[in-house]
């Protein structure tokens, strides 16, 4: 063997070793780009004369932002930036209550058809101009303009007129009463811009607590305190630096290494691993986000209601929560109305306990005495493959043999293939109020009625819940809906996710929200 071949062959082995090392390191998250060391960011701090009481820099690890125009933002990081550069008219607190922001007060008139908002005084945009009612009118007219086809056009299609009824007073008139209108006004996109803003994607001219000091796409964005913010004493921090990370493992490593101070949204495993980390405070709050297992109810075998009941009886929700979510979040009761919606959630109707024998019995009755074979489709993201694997084991005890089919998320949701399969897992995000889930997922003509569920009683209850201005009637409708879903619903909702965050302990006043991007940093400050 000549030298060249020797080298080549050794080379092959070397390549394999390198690949393996890469694989290992990629898994450990070492291969990802490391953020710049902390000292460098501190050098960039340019103290603003206006900031007198604000102090400290909060460095947040977040995904890179793509959209900066509030009308198009969607990811956590995009919303987080917008939420601090701009202000909402009304906001939602961590307990899902509507709270004032730019609007200090409001009145509901005409049986829920007219909303009058009073704006705060002395609000200025970052360019120095004053906020007026016209700016609010322009903002919401833009968002609801059908011709612009913005993502909010549908949401606000129920608005008939918006007018500036005073210098600092705005009046909204609706076509139909909408009990959730205030929630709609606090939609992620509903940030108030200056009237006639042309380049909303790049000028960052908000009224918010922070101004954009520097933005390096794909790298980081630096926000500095707005000294003229209309609420005195806020913000408390001098700067927020949002450092972009594509990989959550890398972000958590950076938190451990002191390169960032705050990480929001991470996998359960990463969050668990941070529990005993000195100098880091972990917070988790329940959300209404959930993974859902559904069986198509319009064709065999799901058209026999006993099958979904058997699946439900064979499912051990507590074990699933422990294994897949490591105990964080909450056990689900097969309805999208989770415990976060305190005013609607009900445990009055009991959820049957796991009973493998009963499940077998139901299968026998349904004509499957020897068990059945099913294929469980799932996207490859989050804990969904794990959920599928755990369900496979649990259901196997009841004689339901499941073939797991994991597909890349883009493939699974692409071309509406996910609506086609019989048995599938879908992840749903957290919403401020529950009506959304009913309308898009469970009513007969819902766009994403993945289970092809159609129930007249359910539909009429959903309409009542969605339109009644009577809070008692509304809550009753939601309670009844939860009962129907336990009795004959096509879905299993084994758990609700928790939202995780971990922050270095020199900060205080951090209050995580179910949608991490809406978390409010105005009150976060350095611990004295």
């Amino acid at each position: 063997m000549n030298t060249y071949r020797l080298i080549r062959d050794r080379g092959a082995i070397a390549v394999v070793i390198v690949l393996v090392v890469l694989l290992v390191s990629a898994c450990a998250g070492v291969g990802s780009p490391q953020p710049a060391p902390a000292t460098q960011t501190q050098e960039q701090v340019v103290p603003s004369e206006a900031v007198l009481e604000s102090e400290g820099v909060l460095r947040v690890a977040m995904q890179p932002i793509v959209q900066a125009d509030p009308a198009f933002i969607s990811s956590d990081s995009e919303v987080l930036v917008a939420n601090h550069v701009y202000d909402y008219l009304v906001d939602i607190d961590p307990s899902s209550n509507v709270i004032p922001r730019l609007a200090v007060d409001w009145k509901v008139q005409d049986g829920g058809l007219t909303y009058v908002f009073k704006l705060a005084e002395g609000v200025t945009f970052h360019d120095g101009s004053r906020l007026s009612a016209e700016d609010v009118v322009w903002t919401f007219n833009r968002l609801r303009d059908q011709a612009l086809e913005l993502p909010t056009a549908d949401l606000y299609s129920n608005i008939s007129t918006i007018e500036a009824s005073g210098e600092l007073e705005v009046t909204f008139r609706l076509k139909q009463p909408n009990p959730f209108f205030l929630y709609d006004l606090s939609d992620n996109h509903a940030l108030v811009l200056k009237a006639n803003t042309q380049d909303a994607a790049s000028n960052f001219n908000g009224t918010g607590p922070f101004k954009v000091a520097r933005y390096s796409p794909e790298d980081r964005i630096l926000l500095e305190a707005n000294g003229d913010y209309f609420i005195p004493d806020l913000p408390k921090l001098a700067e927020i630096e949002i450092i972009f990370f594509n990989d959550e493992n890398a972000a958590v490593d950076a938190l451990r290494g002191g390169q960032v101070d705050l990480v929001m949204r991470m996998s359960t495993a990463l969050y668990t691993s941070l529990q005993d980390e000195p100098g880091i405070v972990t917070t988790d709050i329940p959300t209404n986000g959930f993974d859902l297992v559904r069986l198509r109810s319009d064709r065999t075998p799901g058209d026999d209601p006993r099958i979904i009941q058997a699946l439900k009886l064979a499912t051990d929700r507590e074990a699933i929560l422990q294994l897949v979510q490591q105990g964080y979040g909450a056990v689900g009761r097969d309805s999208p109305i989770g415990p976060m919606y305190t005013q609607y959630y009900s445990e009055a109707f009991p959820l049957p306990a796991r009973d493998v024998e009963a499940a077998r019995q139901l299968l026998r009755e349904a004509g499957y005495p020897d068990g059945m074979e099913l294929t469980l489709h799932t996207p490859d993201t989050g804990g969904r493959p794990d959920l599928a694997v755990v369900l496979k084991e649990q259901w196997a005890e009841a004689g339901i043999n499941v073939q797991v089919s994991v597909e890349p998320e883009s493939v699974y949701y692409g071309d509406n293939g996910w609506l086609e399969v019989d048995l599938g897992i879908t992840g749903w995000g957290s919403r401020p109020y529950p009506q959304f889930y009913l309308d898009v997922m469970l009513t007969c003509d819902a766009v994403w009625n993945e289970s092809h569920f159609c129930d007249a009683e359910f539909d009429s209850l959903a309409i009542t819940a969605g339109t009644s201005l009577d809070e008692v009637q509304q809550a009753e409708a939601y309670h009844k809906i939860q009962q129907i879903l336990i009795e004959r619903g096509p879905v299993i909702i084994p758990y609700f996710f928790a939202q995780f965050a971990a922050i270095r302990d020199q900060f205080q006043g951090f209050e995580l929200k179910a949608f991490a991007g809406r978390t409010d940093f105005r009150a976060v400050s350095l611990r004295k």
Partner: protein
Amino acid sequence: MRREADSLTLFAQNGAAPGRGRRLLSSLRRLYAVPSAAFGATIVIVFLALAIIGPLIAPYEANQQEFQDARQAPSKAHWFGTDHLGRDVFSRVLLGASEVLWLSGAGTLLAVLCGTGIGLTSGYLGGWVDELVMRLFDSLLALPALLLALLMLGAIGTSVTSVLFVILVVYTPIVARVVRSAVLSIKTRGFVEVARLQGESLGWILFREILPLVLPTLAVETALRFSYSIFLVASLGFLGVGVQPPSPNWGLMVKEARQSVSLTPWALYYPVAAISLLVISVNLMADGLKRVLQSPVE
């Protein structure tokens, strides 16, 4: 002339022709004379043995989930610990061996059979057939193996059969090229020409005259392809295509354990170690085979 014949007879007595079996044995002995190859071959044999007896000795079932026992560090009860779903990592690694070895072994075998057939025919016939086949293979080889695999799996869907098919398509051109280049040098040798002059059939010339000479090269190539196949199978598992959970495919195990590496690092390290060890061992064995088979005999 008489003397000559006598002395030849004398000479004939001191060496009877050893059989093929003994030759194989002597090849093995020579393989074991190379320390790195001996190490590689031993490990490969151990893995093969584990793949076969794995189901008998595995303490747990591959997908047995004990949610009270989830995320346990390695202990007496769970030698390699348990993963985030409470499955015994040792049992999974053990039971995964048979799947990885079976898939990559069968895939390699298919690719080698196919590649040998095509390489032999194409190389021996030459001309436009050869030109056409080789250009076709060139275009396949222009794509990186993993990319080609992903493209194909995207097109034909993911299943065990697809993975076998992918290995076949990815490695057939490489084997065919190696065989073909060996054939090109062999087909001009005298005995091939003599065979043609004796009116031997194409089959005889390809399989009896040429193939035996290609075998050493082929053996080395097979071992190399085997190691690459193992890696490909693991990579596909890691990328989540090809095999479906809860299969104890090592690559898939790495993918699953990656999520919770900070909690259950052992669930990641053991399958990674298994992949590395097996791939390196097969490579060392291939290296040794090359030294033994492609150097002049005695």
